[in-house]
Protein backbone atom coordinates (compact mmCIF):
# COMPACT_ATOMS: atom_id res chain seq x y z
CA UNK A 1 0.00 0.00 0.00
CA UNK A 2 1.36 3.41 -0.95
CA UNK A 3 1.62 5.94 1.88
CA UNK A 4 -1.58 7.91 2.21
CA UNK A 5 -0.88 11.50 1.30
CA UNK A 6 -2.13 14.39 -0.83
CA UNK A 7 -1.59 12.20 -3.93
CA UNK A 8 -4.81 10.33 -3.19
CA UNK A 9 -6.96 13.44 -3.20
CA UNK A 10 -8.22 13.02 -6.77
CA UNK A 11 -9.15 9.38 -6.17
CA UNK A 12 -10.89 10.29 -2.94
CA UNK A 13 -12.92 13.09 -4.49
CA UNK A 14 -13.81 10.87 -7.43
CA UNK A 15 -15.07 8.21 -5.01
CA UNK A 16 -12.44 5.91 -6.44
CA UNK A 17 -10.34 5.25 -3.37
CA UNK A 18 -10.42 1.62 -2.13
CA UNK A 19 -12.83 1.31 0.81
CA UNK A 20 -10.15 0.51 3.35
CA UNK A 21 -8.16 3.60 2.34
CA UNK A 22 -11.03 6.04 2.76
CA UNK A 23 -10.93 6.27 6.55
CA UNK A 24 -7.14 6.57 6.48
CA UNK A 25 -7.29 9.34 3.90
CA UNK A 26 -9.94 11.16 5.90
CA UNK A 27 -7.55 11.13 8.84
CA UNK A 28 -4.99 12.73 6.55
CA UNK A 29 -7.54 15.36 5.50
CA UNK A 30 -8.09 16.21 9.14
CA UNK A 31 -4.41 17.03 9.47
CA UNK A 32 -3.67 18.55 6.06
CA UNK A 33 -4.96 22.10 5.51
CA UNK A 34 -4.43 21.85 1.73
CA UNK A 35 -6.51 18.68 1.30
CA UNK A 36 -9.06 19.92 3.82
CA UNK A 37 -9.58 23.08 1.76
CA UNK A 38 -9.87 21.02 -1.44
CA UNK A 39 -12.48 18.72 0.08
CA UNK A 40 -14.51 21.67 1.37
CA UNK A 41 -14.36 23.37 -2.02
CA UNK A 42 -15.35 20.17 -3.81
CA UNK A 43 -18.42 19.75 -1.62
CA UNK A 44 -19.42 23.37 -2.18
CA UNK A 45 -18.87 23.00 -5.91
CA UNK A 46 -21.19 19.99 -6.03
CA UNK A 47 -23.88 21.81 -4.06
CA UNK A 48 -23.59 24.98 -6.13
CA UNK A 49 -23.74 23.13 -9.44
CA UNK A 50 -26.67 21.01 -8.31
CA UNK A 51 -28.64 24.07 -7.24
CA UNK A 52 -27.68 26.01 -10.34
CA UNK A 53 -28.54 23.26 -12.76
CA UNK A 54 -31.87 22.54 -11.12
CA UNK A 55 -32.83 26.21 -10.93
CA UNK A 56 -31.66 27.33 -14.35
CA UNK A 57 -31.76 24.31 -16.62
CA UNK A 58 -35.31 23.06 -16.37
CA UNK A 59 -36.69 21.42 -19.51
CA UNK A 60 -39.57 23.26 -21.13
CA UNK A 61 -43.16 22.32 -20.40
CA UNK A 62 -43.55 21.55 -24.11
CA UNK A 63 -40.78 18.96 -23.96
CA UNK A 64 -42.30 17.35 -20.88
CA UNK A 65 -45.69 17.20 -22.55
CA UNK A 66 -44.28 15.86 -25.76
CA UNK A 67 -42.42 13.05 -24.00
CA UNK A 68 -45.46 12.24 -21.91
CA UNK A 69 -47.52 11.92 -25.08
CA UNK A 70 -44.92 9.74 -26.74
CA UNK A 71 -44.28 7.41 -23.87
CA UNK A 72 -47.55 6.93 -22.10
CA UNK A 73 -50.29 4.63 -23.35
CA UNK A 74 -53.07 6.50 -25.09
CA UNK A 75 -56.59 5.57 -26.02
CA UNK A 76 -57.42 4.88 -29.63
CA UNK A 77 -57.82 8.19 -31.46
CA UNK A 78 -61.11 9.14 -33.15
CA UNK A 79 -61.65 7.64 -36.56
CA UNK A 80 -62.05 10.66 -38.84
CA UNK A 81 -59.87 10.12 -41.93
CA UNK A 82 -57.94 13.33 -41.39
CA UNK A 83 -57.04 12.22 -37.92
CA UNK A 84 -56.02 8.83 -39.20
CA UNK A 85 -53.78 10.42 -41.77
CA UNK A 86 -52.20 12.60 -39.16
CA UNK A 87 -51.68 9.49 -37.13
CA UNK A 88 -49.87 7.86 -40.00
CA UNK A 89 -47.78 10.96 -40.54
CA UNK A 90 -46.71 10.80 -36.94
CA UNK A 91 -45.28 7.38 -37.83
CA UNK A 92 -46.04 5.92 -34.45
CA UNK A 93 -49.11 4.20 -33.07
CA UNK A 94 -49.65 2.77 -29.63
CA UNK A 95 -51.06 -0.73 -29.87
CA UNK A 96 -51.98 -3.51 -27.56
CA UNK A 97 -49.60 -6.43 -27.34
CA UNK A 98 -50.09 -9.59 -29.28
CA UNK A 99 -51.46 -8.03 -32.46
CA UNK A 100 -50.00 -8.65 -35.84
CA UNK A 101 -50.47 -6.01 -38.44
CA UNK A 102 -50.67 -6.94 -42.06
CA UNK A 103 -50.53 -4.45 -44.84
CA UNK A 104 -53.31 -5.23 -47.27
CA UNK A 105 -52.02 -4.64 -50.81
CA UNK A 106 -54.15 -2.05 -52.56
CA UNK A 107 -56.47 -1.92 -49.56
CA UNK A 108 -58.09 -5.27 -50.45
CA UNK A 109 -58.04 -8.24 -48.19
CA UNK A 110 -55.17 -10.48 -49.13
CA UNK A 111 -55.72 -14.18 -49.76
CA UNK A 112 -52.05 -15.02 -49.33
CA UNK A 113 -49.86 -14.47 -46.31
CA UNK A 114 -48.44 -10.97 -46.23
CA UNK A 115 -44.84 -10.54 -47.28
CA UNK A 116 -42.47 -10.38 -44.35
CA UNK A 117 -41.67 -6.71 -44.80
CA UNK A 118 -45.38 -5.95 -44.67
CA UNK A 119 -45.76 -7.36 -41.18
CA UNK A 120 -45.07 -5.51 -37.98
CA UNK A 121 -44.44 -7.76 -35.01
CA UNK A 122 -45.74 -6.47 -31.71
CA UNK A 123 -43.94 -7.90 -28.68
CA UNK A 124 -45.89 -9.48 -25.85
CA UNK A 125 -46.38 -7.30 -22.80
CA UNK A 126 -48.33 -4.21 -21.77
CA UNK A 127 -49.29 -1.35 -24.11
CA UNK A 128 -46.56 -0.92 -26.64
CA UNK A 129 -45.57 1.40 -29.42
CA UNK A 130 -45.02 0.45 -33.01
CA UNK A 131 -43.27 2.40 -35.71
CA UNK A 132 -44.95 2.39 -39.10
CA UNK A 133 -42.94 2.88 -42.26
CA UNK A 134 -43.40 6.18 -44.12
CA UNK A 135 -45.14 4.50 -47.04
CA UNK A 136 -48.22 3.32 -45.12
CA UNK A 137 -51.26 4.85 -43.46
CA UNK A 138 -52.66 3.39 -40.25
CA UNK A 139 -56.42 3.60 -39.66
CA UNK A 140 -57.71 2.65 -36.18
CA UNK A 141 -60.74 0.32 -36.18
CA UNK A 142 -63.21 0.35 -33.30
CA UNK A 143 -63.82 -3.22 -32.19
CA UNK A 144 -65.68 -2.25 -29.04
CA UNK A 145 -62.89 -3.20 -26.63
CA UNK A 146 -61.30 -0.22 -24.88
CA UNK A 147 -58.21 -2.29 -24.08
CA UNK A 148 -57.49 -3.40 -27.62
CA UNK A 149 -56.62 -1.16 -30.53
CA UNK A 150 -56.71 -2.65 -34.00
CA UNK A 151 -55.15 -0.59 -36.75
CA UNK A 152 -55.54 -1.37 -40.43
CA UNK A 153 -52.37 -0.50 -42.23
CA UNK A 154 -52.66 0.52 -45.90
CA UNK A 155 -49.79 1.16 -48.29
CA UNK A 156 -49.73 4.64 -49.77
CA UNK A 157 -50.92 4.42 -53.40
CA UNK A 158 -48.01 4.83 -55.74
CA UNK A 159 -48.91 4.25 -59.43
CA UNK A 160 -45.27 4.38 -60.49
CA UNK A 161 -44.24 1.54 -58.24
CA UNK A 162 -47.36 -0.60 -58.45
CA UNK A 163 -45.78 -3.86 -59.53
CA UNK A 164 -46.34 -6.19 -56.56
Amino acid at each position, binding site marked *: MKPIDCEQL*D*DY*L*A*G*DLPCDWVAVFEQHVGQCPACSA*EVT*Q*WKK*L*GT*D*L*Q*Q*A*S*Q*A*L*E*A*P*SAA*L*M*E*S*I*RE*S*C*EPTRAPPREPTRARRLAAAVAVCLTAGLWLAVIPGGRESSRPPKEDHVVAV*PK*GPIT*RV*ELPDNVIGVPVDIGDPDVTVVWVYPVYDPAGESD
Partner: protein
Amino acid sequence: MSDGIADYVSRVYRFALRLTGDPHRAEDLTQETFLRAWRKRGSLRDPRATRTWLFRIAVNLWKDQSSKGKPDAVALETEIAAGCATPDQHLQGQEELQQAIKKLSGLPPRQSQVLYLVAVEQMSLAEAADVLQINKNTAKVHLSLARKQMRETFQAKS
Protein backbone atom coordinates in the same frame (compact mmCIF):
# COMPACT_ATOMS: atom_id res chain seq x y z
CA MET B 1 -46.83 12.49 -16.22
CA SER B 2 -45.72 10.81 -13.06
CA ASP B 3 -43.12 12.62 -11.01
CA GLY B 4 -40.73 9.77 -11.67
CA ILE B 5 -40.74 10.32 -15.41
CA ALA B 6 -40.59 14.10 -15.01
CA ASP B 7 -37.51 13.69 -12.84
CA TYR B 8 -35.83 11.51 -15.47
CA VAL B 9 -36.73 13.96 -18.23
CA SER B 10 -35.13 16.78 -16.23
CA ARG B 11 -32.01 14.77 -15.56
CA VAL B 12 -31.63 13.61 -19.15
CA TYR B 13 -32.22 17.14 -20.44
CA ARG B 14 -29.59 18.64 -18.14
CA PHE B 15 -27.11 15.94 -19.12
CA ALA B 16 -27.99 16.52 -22.78
CA LEU B 17 -27.03 20.16 -22.29
CA ARG B 18 -23.56 18.96 -21.32
CA LEU B 19 -23.39 16.83 -24.48
CA THR B 20 -24.82 19.22 -27.02
CA GLY B 21 -24.02 22.60 -25.51
CA ASP B 22 -27.27 23.92 -26.93
CA PRO B 23 -30.76 24.03 -25.36
CA HIS B 24 -32.59 23.26 -28.60
CA ARG B 25 -30.39 20.33 -29.49
CA ALA B 26 -30.59 19.18 -25.88
CA GLU B 27 -34.39 19.14 -26.15
CA ASP B 28 -34.22 17.16 -29.39
CA LEU B 29 -31.73 14.73 -27.90
CA THR B 30 -33.86 14.29 -24.77
CA GLN B 31 -36.92 13.57 -26.88
CA GLU B 32 -35.04 11.06 -29.02
CA THR B 33 -33.58 9.44 -25.92
CA PHE B 34 -37.02 8.81 -24.47
CA LEU B 35 -38.40 7.55 -27.76
CA ARG B 36 -35.57 5.06 -28.07
CA ALA B 37 -35.82 4.14 -24.40
CA TRP B 38 -39.54 3.54 -24.79
CA ARG B 39 -38.96 1.29 -27.76
CA LYS B 40 -36.18 -0.61 -26.01
CA ARG B 41 -37.59 -0.60 -22.51
CA GLY B 42 -37.59 -4.38 -22.51
CA SER B 43 -33.80 -4.27 -22.44
CA LEU B 44 -33.73 -2.51 -19.07
CA ARG B 45 -33.15 -5.38 -16.68
CA ASP B 46 -32.74 -3.47 -13.44
CA PRO B 47 -35.04 -0.47 -12.85
CA ARG B 48 -32.49 0.91 -10.38
CA ALA B 49 -30.17 1.41 -13.34
CA THR B 50 -32.72 3.51 -15.25
CA ARG B 51 -30.76 6.73 -14.96
CA THR B 52 -27.46 5.36 -16.28
CA TRP B 53 -29.36 3.42 -18.96
CA LEU B 54 -31.06 6.62 -20.18
CA PHE B 55 -27.80 8.57 -20.07
CA ARG B 56 -26.06 5.89 -22.12
CA ILE B 57 -28.82 6.01 -24.71
CA ALA B 58 -28.36 9.79 -24.90
CA VAL B 59 -24.60 9.37 -25.35
CA ASN B 60 -25.09 6.77 -28.09
CA LEU B 61 -27.59 8.94 -29.94
CA TRP B 62 -25.31 11.94 -29.64
CA LYS B 63 -22.37 9.92 -30.95
CA ASP B 64 -24.50 8.78 -33.91
CA GLN B 65 -25.50 12.35 -34.65
CA SER B 66 -21.94 13.63 -34.31
CA SER B 67 -20.64 10.98 -36.67
CA LYS B 68 -23.27 12.06 -39.20
CA GLY B 69 -21.80 15.53 -39.24
CA LYS B 70 -23.74 17.42 -36.61
CA PRO B 71 -21.35 19.74 -34.82
CA ASP B 72 -19.71 18.79 -31.55
CA ALA B 73 -20.69 20.19 -28.23
CA VAL B 74 -20.08 23.89 -27.89
CA ALA B 75 -19.88 26.09 -24.87
CA LEU B 76 -23.29 27.17 -23.70
CA GLU B 77 -22.08 30.54 -22.47
CA THR B 78 -24.83 32.68 -21.01
CA GLU B 79 -27.62 31.66 -23.34
CA ILE B 80 -28.92 28.78 -21.28
CA ALA B 81 -29.58 30.67 -18.11
CA ALA B 82 -31.36 33.46 -19.91
CA GLY B 83 -33.47 31.03 -21.88
CA CYS B 84 -34.61 28.84 -19.01
CA ALA B 85 -35.09 31.11 -16.02
CA THR B 86 -38.62 32.14 -15.16
CA PRO B 87 -39.51 35.08 -12.91
CA ASP B 88 -40.12 32.93 -9.84
CA GLN B 89 -36.66 31.48 -10.25
CA HIS B 90 -35.03 34.78 -9.44
CA LEU B 91 -33.82 33.44 -6.18
CA GLN B 92 -31.36 35.02 -3.92
CA GLY B 93 -27.89 34.41 -5.25
CA GLN B 94 -29.12 33.62 -8.73
CA GLU B 95 -26.23 35.49 -10.22
CA GLU B 96 -23.87 33.11 -8.47
CA LEU B 97 -25.80 30.15 -9.81
CA GLN B 98 -25.60 31.56 -13.31
CA GLN B 99 -21.87 32.02 -12.90
CA ALA B 100 -21.50 28.40 -11.77
CA ILE B 101 -23.41 27.11 -14.80
CA LYS B 102 -21.57 29.42 -17.12
CA LYS B 103 -18.27 28.14 -15.81
CA LEU B 104 -19.36 24.51 -16.04
CA SER B 105 -20.51 25.06 -19.60
CA GLY B 106 -17.27 26.82 -20.47
CA LEU B 107 -15.20 23.73 -19.68
CA PRO B 108 -14.10 21.45 -22.52
CA PRO B 109 -17.06 19.10 -23.20
CA ARG B 110 -15.53 15.95 -21.70
CA GLN B 111 -14.46 17.75 -18.54
CA SER B 112 -17.89 19.29 -18.18
CA GLN B 113 -19.58 15.91 -18.72
CA VAL B 114 -17.46 14.01 -16.21
CA LEU B 115 -17.68 16.78 -13.62
CA TYR B 116 -21.44 16.97 -14.08
CA LEU B 117 -21.96 13.23 -13.66
CA VAL B 118 -19.74 12.97 -10.58
CA ALA B 119 -20.45 16.27 -8.80
CA VAL B 120 -24.09 16.84 -9.72
CA GLU B 121 -25.44 13.37 -10.46
CA GLN B 122 -23.26 11.93 -7.69
CA MET B 123 -22.15 9.03 -9.84
CA SER B 124 -19.01 7.11 -9.07
CA LEU B 125 -16.14 7.59 -11.47
CA ALA B 126 -16.74 4.09 -12.82
CA GLU B 127 -20.41 4.86 -13.52
CA ALA B 128 -19.52 8.15 -15.20
CA ALA B 129 -16.90 6.41 -17.36
CA ASP B 130 -19.45 3.74 -18.24
CA VAL B 131 -22.06 6.31 -19.28
CA LEU B 132 -19.57 8.22 -21.42
CA GLN B 133 -17.99 5.01 -22.68
CA ILE B 134 -14.49 6.11 -21.83
CA ASN B 135 -11.69 4.59 -19.80
CA LYS B 136 -11.96 5.18 -16.05
CA ASN B 137 -8.46 6.65 -15.86
CA THR B 138 -9.31 9.03 -18.68
CA ALA B 139 -12.42 10.06 -16.76
CA LYS B 140 -10.28 10.64 -13.69
CA VAL B 141 -7.96 12.95 -15.60
CA HIS B 142 -10.91 14.93 -16.97
CA LEU B 143 -12.40 15.21 -13.50
CA SER B 144 -9.15 16.42 -12.01
CA LEU B 145 -8.67 19.04 -14.74
CA ALA B 146 -12.27 20.18 -14.44
CA ARG B 147 -12.03 20.51 -10.68
CA LYS B 148 -8.88 22.60 -10.96
CA GLN B 149 -10.42 24.82 -13.63
CA MET B 150 -13.49 25.41 -11.51
CA ARG B 151 -11.40 26.06 -8.42
CA GLU B 152 -9.26 28.62 -10.20
CA THR B 153 -12.36 30.43 -11.37
CA PHE B 154 -13.97 30.50 -7.97
CA GLN B 155 -10.70 31.65 -6.40
CA ALA B 156 -10.26 34.34 -9.03
CA LYS B 157 -13.79 35.53 -8.27
CA SER B 158 -13.39 35.75 -4.51
